């Protein structure tokens, strides 16, 4: 076995390589002394007919050499390249000694649809799909500029997943691009199935509960991030695009904020930060007040609260944890089940939690209001990743308040703030624009100022071209 003979791509050798691959298609054209080898399901049938079958039908054996001069036929001299080519959706044409690869990759998958996880009321409704070329086309259609650069990488020893790094030249900071590229190239794993998985390989601190890169399914969001000087990563076979670097507060903005009038957008943003506070502290507050700080209860609420607690046999912490776990069970069951059964879960859960638990004396109805409002508030946060993280840390805070009351609550919030300030996203501070303090960014982070005021790109993208628009007076 000499390497030389192995490297020459012969039909026999290639067929040998794809031994026991039942889905491989091998067609002979004896009169032309040609063979074609391909995977039918990765190849576009129309292209195959148009580029190979029809010309082959028309041509004689000697005309074939002329056909292969056309640029779509790439002559390949390496066996390995041929194998990879066939796997990636090329048709390998064997003619005499020569082997040609014709790229006839056919897309498989659903058409562009609405996003299920990131819905908006106004604005574009298309979302990324599993096919990266489609996703790239969705972005290219929106940014008609040669400055949109796309770097292609490959990860996964087995899966050989293609990953595209998108950035806009002269806006994005090349340091970030290089850093991201290095991180992606450093990954050594067998297979990556989704953008969500990829982020965990390239995050600054993978053990944190908080997502350090914003993921989105929406091309309009991806484009706005690109224009802001951030970098988008698209993984083939995944509808999830990754935006980097990201800040904590970015997870609280929704594209809707920009499609509606600015006053509405501002109101919604503030509402979401209120939702963050409610999610983290509402149930915890209930626990601390009923366990330790009865002094804090307003006179008008005292009797209601005490009466509702009267029949409950557990201390408030256990009561609260019980209900919180119930809600999470319901949510998870609802998420995993098909929509039709999911409704049943909603009704059953509504009855069990809303009515029966109170009547049975397992929980107090004030707690149900607290738990429900903190659950609802958690769904207000537009990013599913962030809302899941916050729901998780809520449990920690409830336990802390069960031990130390309000001191525990404050400690929990302090721990979260300490942790958040420790986090970085591609080396930039996760808490931008609070730390480092960039008050200029606030008008596009905490509120959504009118467009006439949004003149500069976010400081976090460290762009050298920070002017976004010029106001003509």
């Amino acid at each position, binding site marked *: 076995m000499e390497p030389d003979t192995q490297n020459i791509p012969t039909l026999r050798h290639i067929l040998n390589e794809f031994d026991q691959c039942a889905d491989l298609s091998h067609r002979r054209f004896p009169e032309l002394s040609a063979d074609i080898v391909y995977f039918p399901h990765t190849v576009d049938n129309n292209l195959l007919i148009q580029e190979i079958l029809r010309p082959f039908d028309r041509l004689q054996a000697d005309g074939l050499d002329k056909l292969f001069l056309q640029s779509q036929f790439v002559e390949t001299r390496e066996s390995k390249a041929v194998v990879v080519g066939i796997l990636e959706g090329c048709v390998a044409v064997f003619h005499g000694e020569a082997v040609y690869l014709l790229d006839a990759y056919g897309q498989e998958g659903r058409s562009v649809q609405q996003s299920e996880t990131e819905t908006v009321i106004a604005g574009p409704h298309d979302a990324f799909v599993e096919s990266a070329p489609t996703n790239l086309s969705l972005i290219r259609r929106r940014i008609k500029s040669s400055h949109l650069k796309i770097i292609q990488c490959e990860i996964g020893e087995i899966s050989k997943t293609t990953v595209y790094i998108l950035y806009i030249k002269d806006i994005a900071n090349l340091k970030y691009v290089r850093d991201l590229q290095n991180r992606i190239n450093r990954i050594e794993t067998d297979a990556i199935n989704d953008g969500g998985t990829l982020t965990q390989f390239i995050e*600054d*601190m*993978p*053990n*944190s509960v908080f997502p350090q890169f914003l993921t989105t399914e929406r091309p309009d969001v991806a484009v706005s991030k690109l224009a802001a000087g951030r970098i988008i990563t698209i993984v083939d076979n995944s509808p999830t695009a990754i935006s980097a670097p990201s800040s904590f507060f970015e997870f609280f903005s929704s594209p809707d904020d920009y499609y509606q009038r600015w006053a509405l957008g501002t109101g919604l943003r503030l509402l979401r930060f209120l939702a963050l506070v409610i999610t983290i502290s509402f149930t915890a507050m209930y626990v601390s*007040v*009923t*366990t*330790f*700080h*009865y*002094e804090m*209860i307003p*006179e008008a609420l*005292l*009797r209601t*609260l*005490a*009466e509702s*607690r*009267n029949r*409950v046999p557990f*201390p*408030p912490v256990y009561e609260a944890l019980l209900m919180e776990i119930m809600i999470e069970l319901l949510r998870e069951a609802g998420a995993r089940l098909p929509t039709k059964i999911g409704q049943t879960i909603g009704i059953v859960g509504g009855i069990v939690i809303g009515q029966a638990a109170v009547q049975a004396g397992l929980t107090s109805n004030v707690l149900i209001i607290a738990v429900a409002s903190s659950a609802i508030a958690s769904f207000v946060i537009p990013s599913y990743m962030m809302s899941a993280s916050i729901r998780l840390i809520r449990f920690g805070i409830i*336990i802390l308040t069960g*031990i*130390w*009351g309000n001191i525990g609550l404050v400690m929990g919030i302090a721990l979260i703030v300490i942790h958040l300030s420790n986090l970085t996203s591609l080396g930039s501070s996760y808490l931008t624009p609070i730390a480092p303090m960039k008050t200029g960014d606030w008008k596009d982070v905490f509120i959504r100022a009118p467009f006439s005021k949004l003149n500069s790109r976010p400081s976090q993208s460290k762009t050298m071209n920070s002017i976004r628009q010029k106001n003509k007076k």
Partner: protein
Amino acid sequence: MHRQNYCMARLFLILLLLPPLLLTGCKSDERILEKLGLVQTASYDLAENNRIKVTSCVPVIDPNSSVRRELLSTVSDSIKEAGIMFSRQTDLTVVSGQLRDALFGLKLAKAGLGDYIDTLLRDPSIALGVKVTIINGDAGEILAKEYKPHTDTGRYINHLLEKEAAGNSIPNTTLYEFSRDYNDDGIDPVAPIVRDSGDKAVIDGIALFQEDRYRMKIPAQDGIFFGLFRDDLRQGEVALHLGEEAGRPAVVMFSSLLNSRKVKVHRLGADRFKVELLANIQGSVLEYTGHHSLNKAGIRQQLERDIADVIMAKAKEMVLQMQQHNVDSLGIGIQVRNSLSYKEWNQMNWREVYPQVEIACKAKVTIKDYGKYM
């Protein structure tokens, strides 16, 4: 990589430390709501041998119970000792963090409230916003009585005081205000008085203290005049009798009061002062039973002067009484103190000087509007 290891190590540390914390907890600090006897109103009376009778009103939170409140009563030497005795009477932990109203019997108020106020202030769970109220009679009795349809007398009195204080006819006296005025130089504390009138509890007036001892009372209907000269007001109403006109009483109902008080101090001699109290009052006339037409500017100005005269006469009488009882409830001492150096003030015995101070009460009345009709 180093950072990740550090993070993991910290995670382990937290996981290691959490279980012992959960196991030990702070069980003794726990105050689980439904296991508490939340004292909302407490009353204190002077009993025999200088002991005090303490009555606490605790809401019964069982919705199935027909009784809405539970009364705990005991005679002891101190307020806190009474608390210990209460816990022997009930299955609940008696706590005072929800205290809203402290009622003091008149006898106790005459003997001096200083020590009891001090005890209440010392307890960190008791808020500074607890109301201090004097009961004309036995405070424990009024608290124990049921005023139909109110199920909880404590709350009834509390809301009554709150509402009246909002209209400034009585001062809103809290622990904070009482102790501030008690400890401050040149002002004496005041508190509302409530009395039992059979089927209702009614506001009796304003109790004026010298230091911590009750001295005199201003009747309820004159409360607003006291208020006008004690502080700036943002709200209030007053009905004034302007004598008789053509055989029937002329009454002006003066509402939506705005008052700004000014004080001028003139030093006449070594220990002699003249103090001018100036109340600048604005308001709307909502009722006028006199015969003049109010849409004439001249008539209105005359009415303004008449109203001011009535107010000044009331105030003069009130100030005279206060000087007789030697209670400086209007805080004239503070104004005098502010006009003097610290040394001069310290050398002066304000209690001796105060009755001789010439106090002139002046009122300036402006009618903002006089209703919509005519």
